[in-house]
Structure formats: C-alpha cells, structure tokens
C-alpha cells in the first residue's frame, strides 16, 4: 500500500470497507432483507397452516392487496387513522409552533427550563404515560371529567364512547410529541436574522405583521419538515390504541398498524399483514411527496 499522501484516494482505496461493512451487514440482514421479505410475503397466503407446514404456502400474486381493498375493517382502520392524523397534526403543529414562538420571544426568561419542561414528554415511555392518561380520562374518577363537570360541561365517556375515543388518543399523542417539533422550530426561529425584524419594525410593522411577513415565510421549509415527520409518524399509530383501548370501543381506535398487528400476530395471516404494511408505506410515501410539492408551491408564492 503506497504511503503517498494521495488525496485522490489511492492509499485509501480499499480501506473503507472494513469500517463500513459491519454496520452495512447488520442493516442488510436485519432491515433490507426483511423489507424484501415483506414484499415477497405479501404475495403469498402465509398463515397458520403455512406456519405448521411450509408446503401449505401458496403464491397468490396481488390477491392480498385485492382482498385488502374489499375488507371493511381495513377501511375502518384507515378511516380511524386518517381521523387521528386530521385531528392530531394541526393540533400538534399549532402547539409546537406556538410554544416555539413563546420560548423564542425576547421577553421570555428561563428559556432553558421551559424548553426542558415542554420537551420532557417526548422522552417518556409511551406505554407508561398511556397508563396515566387512561386514568386521567376515566369516566368517573378521571381528572379531566372532574374539570369538565366543574366548568359546567357534561362528563365525557372518553374511552367508552366511540365518538370520543379517538380524540382522547389525539390528546395523548399531541401532548407526548409536540415538544419534538418545538425544538426543531425553535432552532429554525433562532436562525432568522435579527435585521429582518429590525427592518420590518422600522417600516412600522407590529408583532402580528412580523409574524406573517417575516417569520412564517422563512419557516416554511422547517414547517414542511415538521409536518412531514408528524404526518408520517401519526400514520404509524399503534401503541396508544394497544395499551389504552385495545382498538375499541366498537373498533373506533383500530389504526392501520393495529389492524396489521392483529392480522399478523393474533391470527397469523402473515401474508395479508405484510400487504397491509406495504400499503401503509406506499400511503406515507405519497403523502410525503405531496407535502413536499405543496411546500414548494407555497414557497414560490
């Protein structure tokens, strides 16, 4: 091996592999391989019988996908998940943007403390906090209904009424995650040069104007990123319904992943479940690209 300091890489030519190989091997075996495996599985009818004896496996082409499209429970799960995303994403974005603006304000003291406090739920274990929320949402002994009745509003059967169960899960999810986006938006806010605000203020712009004309337009790329992350994250809803409601009441909290989990690990329709997983992935991919295109359009305005 030549010892010449050849920046074009002759002395470094083959030396990268031993460093990259272990990680790549792990990723290849435990991630990429299963992805391909999932795709192949989705074209078979792998189920309990095939688990017992592999000769019971049949290749069924696109039949799983076709069945999926006519399975009412899948559409219900998709509907539930969409409701969750439609309710949760705007709420989450407003919460994270609002808190980011507040924390970033020149008038704020103890920024570090507020930032930490608002971020804390993000690092907590979901299963654990779902339990405290389940208790807080209890119809009779829960704190939230206690507050509602004190304000003169009727108590809500959060986890028993199919109309309110998803909103309950939205509350939990937003509370848990808004801090993450807040941090990202905070960083972006801190990157906006002060002189832009100076210039606007010189032109007589008030706080609201500054927000609309300076802050928001410059935030569009970050807001896009944040919304993409949130949307794709929220479509992967699983742990909250699993712990809090077991998909009920009346299947109102069955999400796409919950449906996949039950099909795959409760009923062992593994081929079918893999098809569900891929459909979800395709959906998230399409939505991500749509959001990026929308952001580009908004940025041009």
């Amino acid at each position, binding site marked *: 091996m030549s*010892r010449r*300091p050849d920046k074009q890489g002759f002395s*470094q*030519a083959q*030396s*990268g*592999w031993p*460093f*990259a190989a*272990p*990680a790549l091997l792990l*990723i290849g075996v*435990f*991630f*990429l391989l*299963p*992805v391909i*495996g*999932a795709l192949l*599985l989705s074209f078979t009818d792998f189920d309990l019988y095939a688990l017992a004896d592999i000769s019971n496996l049949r290749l069924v082409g696109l039949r799983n996908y076709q069945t999926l499209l006519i399975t009412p429970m899948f559409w219900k799960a998709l509907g539930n998940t969409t409701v969750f995303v439609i309710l949760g994403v705007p709420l989450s974005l407003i919460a994270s943007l609002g*808190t980011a603006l507040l924390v970033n*304000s020149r*008038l704020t003291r103890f920024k570090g403390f*507020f930032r930490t*406090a*608002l*971020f*804390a*739920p993000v*690092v*907590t*274990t*979901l*299963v*654990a*906090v779902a*339990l*405290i929320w389940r*208790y*807080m949402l209890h119809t*009779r*002994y829960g704190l939230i209904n*206690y507050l509602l009745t004190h304000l003169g509003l009727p108590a809500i059967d959060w986890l028993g009424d199919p109309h309110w169960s998803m909103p309950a899960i939205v509350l939990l999810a937003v*509370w848990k995650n808004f*801090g993450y986006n807040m941090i*990202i938006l905070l*960083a972006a806010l801190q990157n906006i040069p002060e002189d832009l605000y100076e210039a606007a203020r010189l032109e007589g712009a008030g706080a609201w104007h500054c927000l609309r004309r300076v802050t928001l337009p410059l935030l569009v790329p970050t807001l896009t990123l944040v919304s993409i*992350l949130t949307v*794709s994250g929220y479509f992967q809803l699983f*742990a909250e319904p*699993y712990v809090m409601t077991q998909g009920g009441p009346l299947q109102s909290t069955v999400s796409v*992943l919950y449906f996949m*989990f039950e099909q*795959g*690990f409760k009923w062992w329709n593994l081929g079918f479940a*893999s098809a569900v997983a*891929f459909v*979800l*992935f395709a959906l998230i*991919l399409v939505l991500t690209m749509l959001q990026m295109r929308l952001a580009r359009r908004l940025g041009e305005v």
Partner: protein
Amino acid sequence: MKQRALIWLVNGSLTLLALLTLFPLLWMVSVALMPTGASASYPPPLLPARATLSHFHDLFAQQHMGRYFLNSLIVATSATLLALLLNAMAGYAFAKLRFGGRDTIYAVLLAGLLIPAQVTMIPLFGLLKVMGLVNSYAGAVLPSAASIFGIFLVRQYALAIPEDLLDEARIDGASEWRIFRSVVLPLLVPILVTLGIFVFLATWNDFMWPLIVLTGRDMQTLPVALAGLAREHVQDNEMMMAGAVVTVLPVLALFLVLQRFYLRGILLGSIKG
C-alpha cells in the same frame, strides 16, 4: 407598562403550558405513592393522603420488576454500545474513506430512512426464528443496532474533520485503524454521546418490537411487561403508576443530565439536506 404586561403574559402562558405538560408526569409519581384504591375516588385526589412505597415494594418483590428492569438495561445498553461502535466506523467511512459504490450505497440508505420499521417486523420475526434468536437478548438488540440514522448522524459530523489531519497521520505511517482510534474517535465524541443517548432512549422505550420478539415472560423489557400488567390488573391503578414511574424515571434522568447533546442531535438530524 405595556411591555411589563406583555412580559407577564408571555412568561405566564409559558408557565401554564409547562405546568400542563408536566402535570401528568408529576401526578404519575403522586398516584404511585398513594395507598391502594385511593385513586378511584371522587373527587380525584391530587396528593396522597398517606404516602406509601408499598407498590414499589410489591412490583419488585412479586411482579418481577427487577428482572424486567435488568432486561431493559441489558438490551438498551448492548444496543447502544453495538450501535456506537458500528455506526462510528461506518459514518467515518462514508464521510472520509473511499470504497467502491460508496455514494450509491449511501443514497440507498437514505431512501431506506423513509421505510417505516413496521414493514419489516413480520419477516424479521421469521428470520430470527430461523436463526434461533426468538426470545433472546440478541433478537431484541441486533435489529435496534442496525441504524441508518446513526450512520447518517456520524457522517454529517465526520465530514467536518479536516483532511490534513488524517493525511498527516497517514504520512507518519499509521494504519487506518490506528488513525480511526487515535485521531477520529476523540473528535467524534460529541456526536457519539448524542447517538448513544438516541439509541438508548429509543431502545429503552421501544414497545412493538420487544412485544413481538421477547415471547417469554422473564425476557420482557419494562414497556412490554408494563403493558402486560396493565391488561391484567385493570383495577390496580396505583401499582400501575408505580410501574410507570420505574419505567420512565431512568430515561427522564438520563435526558435531564445529557439534554444538551440530545437536543443538538435532533437538530443535526432534522437538517436532512
């Protein structure tokens, strides 16, 4: 005057929001200290009338919480160490070393970031079964250590290492491994701390994968065990909260101590070109 009112408004709202955000966590601790049945009363009690550690005692003595804690610790620590080692090497390689197909492979990896993990879970289970790793620590650790995000994070950081530094060492006759150990690693420490926290937190909090792969009760990690307990003991709120505290406290403590690194890592990760 208006300025003063605004200051109060802004800080006041933030204080309120912070309280609302922290409230469930604080109450979790409070309920965990309440005697059995105290929480199922109306109006809901905010503070324990008589604080008791009996639920924690119960959890460790009867519900094998110590075992689950140990499992979580083993799995999270192993995954973190493995991920750190592998991703440090790979991130550095992608940033500074040449090898065939490097850039293409990296592009493929980035694309892989878009694929949600759940897509892989079913065949991954099948693969682990063939490898005989179901219901083992390795089964829980290995998939968590295979992190594309980790490589990305280290690479971003490693790009800033000056070439001359490396070349000088090469001229001096040092092997690539020696250079990595003595020159690069010390420089990567900040991002490795960040990555370590990320992986530890993610693995400790992970629920779905351990639920699937750790089938035996004595292998379960805290989140899985907690979910199991919750489905069994629907009535025992206080004990559930104690379990939740045991699960959440370690990661919360870790976060508080190392938050600078963790938050920086999120930012680095979000500037994804």
